[in-house]
């Protein structure tokens, strides 16, 4: 049985523990931050107005979660939460490459050729992964993380239910809808893999009881998504876009950074 770490101060005493913990917190924070950013590009463009409002709540909640994780990192001495969110370079980021992918061709202001099938597939796979990860984090030896996961999971339940409903209804609807979703699912099975990776410190993360074994985590996720998806999706997805957990990212993340730092970089010291 691993010893519980009650505070950041205690965790920092054990360097290996603190490093593994920070690695995991960056994954949580960066994933939520980037998927919320992609969600904010969707504002005003959802299939109908009522959905626009509902989707936006999820996007906001998720940015709220990212903020909470950045604050945990701040407590660990990693730096100011806003700076962590905005000022880190591409290769310092730990988000999954699949989550960074652009919503489609075009720009959110000009000709946004966005695909609702990608939104549904990506968010469903992500929210399922996040749920499994949070459930494991609720039992983390790092007490502040366990407490936060317990809180976050309360409102994350709606997020998963929302995307699961979309997935189920569209898979059961017209051939056109089903084909669009299946094609995005096939793509996800090539690309989603790094979201399920716990990164270079995976073994320490498990050893210290900060989270569970990567393999166990992957299997839990697979069991969950199998309940909703067609039987053919029974394997762990590949990582054809690279592994964001190791700082390997594509151009899409740089595109996102250029947008979300446009105002911030005018004056990083200024109060906005």
């Amino acid at each position, binding site marked *: 049985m691993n010893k519980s770490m009650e505070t950041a101060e205690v965790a920092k005493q054990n360097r290996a523990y603190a490093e593994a913990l920070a690695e995991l917190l960056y994954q949580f924070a960066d994933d939520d931050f980037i998927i919320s950013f992609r969600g904010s590009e969707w504002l005003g463009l959802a299939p109908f107005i*009522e959905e626009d409002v509902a989707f936006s709540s999820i996007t906001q909640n998720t940015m709220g979660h990212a903020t909470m994780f950045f604050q945990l990192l701040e407590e660990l001495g990693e730096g100011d939460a806003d700076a962590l969110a905005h000022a880190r370079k591409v290769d310092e980021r730990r988000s999954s490459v699949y989550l960074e992918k652009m919503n489609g061709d075009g720009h959110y202001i000009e000709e946004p050729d966005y695909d609702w099938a990608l939104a549904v597939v990506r968010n469903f796979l992500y929210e399922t992964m996040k749920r499994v990860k949070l459930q494991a984090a609720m039992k983390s030896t790092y007490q502040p993380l366990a407490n936060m996961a317990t809180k976050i999971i309360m409102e994350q339940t709606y997020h998963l239910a929302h995307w699961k409903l979309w997935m189920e209804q569209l898979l059961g609807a017209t051939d056109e809808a089903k084909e669009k979703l299946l094609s995005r699912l096939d793509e996800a099975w090539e690309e989603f893999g790094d979201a399920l990776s716990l990164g270079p410190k995976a073994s320490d993360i498990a050893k210290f009881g900060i989270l569970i074994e990567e393999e166990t985590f992957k299997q839990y996720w697979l069991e969950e998504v199998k309940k909703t998806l067609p039987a053919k999706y029974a394997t762990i997805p590949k990582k054809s876009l690279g592994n964001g957990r190791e700082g390997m990212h594509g151009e899409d993340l740089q595109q996102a950074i250029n947008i979300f730092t446009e105002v911030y970089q005018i004056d990083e010291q200024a109060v906005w």
Partner: protein
Amino acid sequence: MSGANEKNFYKEYEVFSKKSNKLPLQHQFSLLAPNKEMALMMAQENFMRREDAIDIWVVAREDIRALTGEEKQVLTKRLDNKDYRNTKGYGYLRKLWREKEEKLKMLDEKEIMSWSEGRKG
């Protein structure tokens, strides 16, 4: 299944919610959704983003029979001669009880509702 007319996507649902255990269900507003599961998924974020809801109902508007404009004019009127239905018609009992026994009072609303606290002592 083939694609139906896009118009059928927009079905009207009335949304009701309950803010706390002690309050009755309250009408919120209406929304458009393709089916009741989607309607329920949309309801809270559209109308109760900033307030509590411990229960939510969605009802297809086509299932509601409400009074029409004309019916409202003629079916909601009532003569003011129904004192026998409420306590207003029984105030005279106060005096009659007093004549019988000074300490005994008629059982009024305040008295009866106070029994909810149970028997004391």
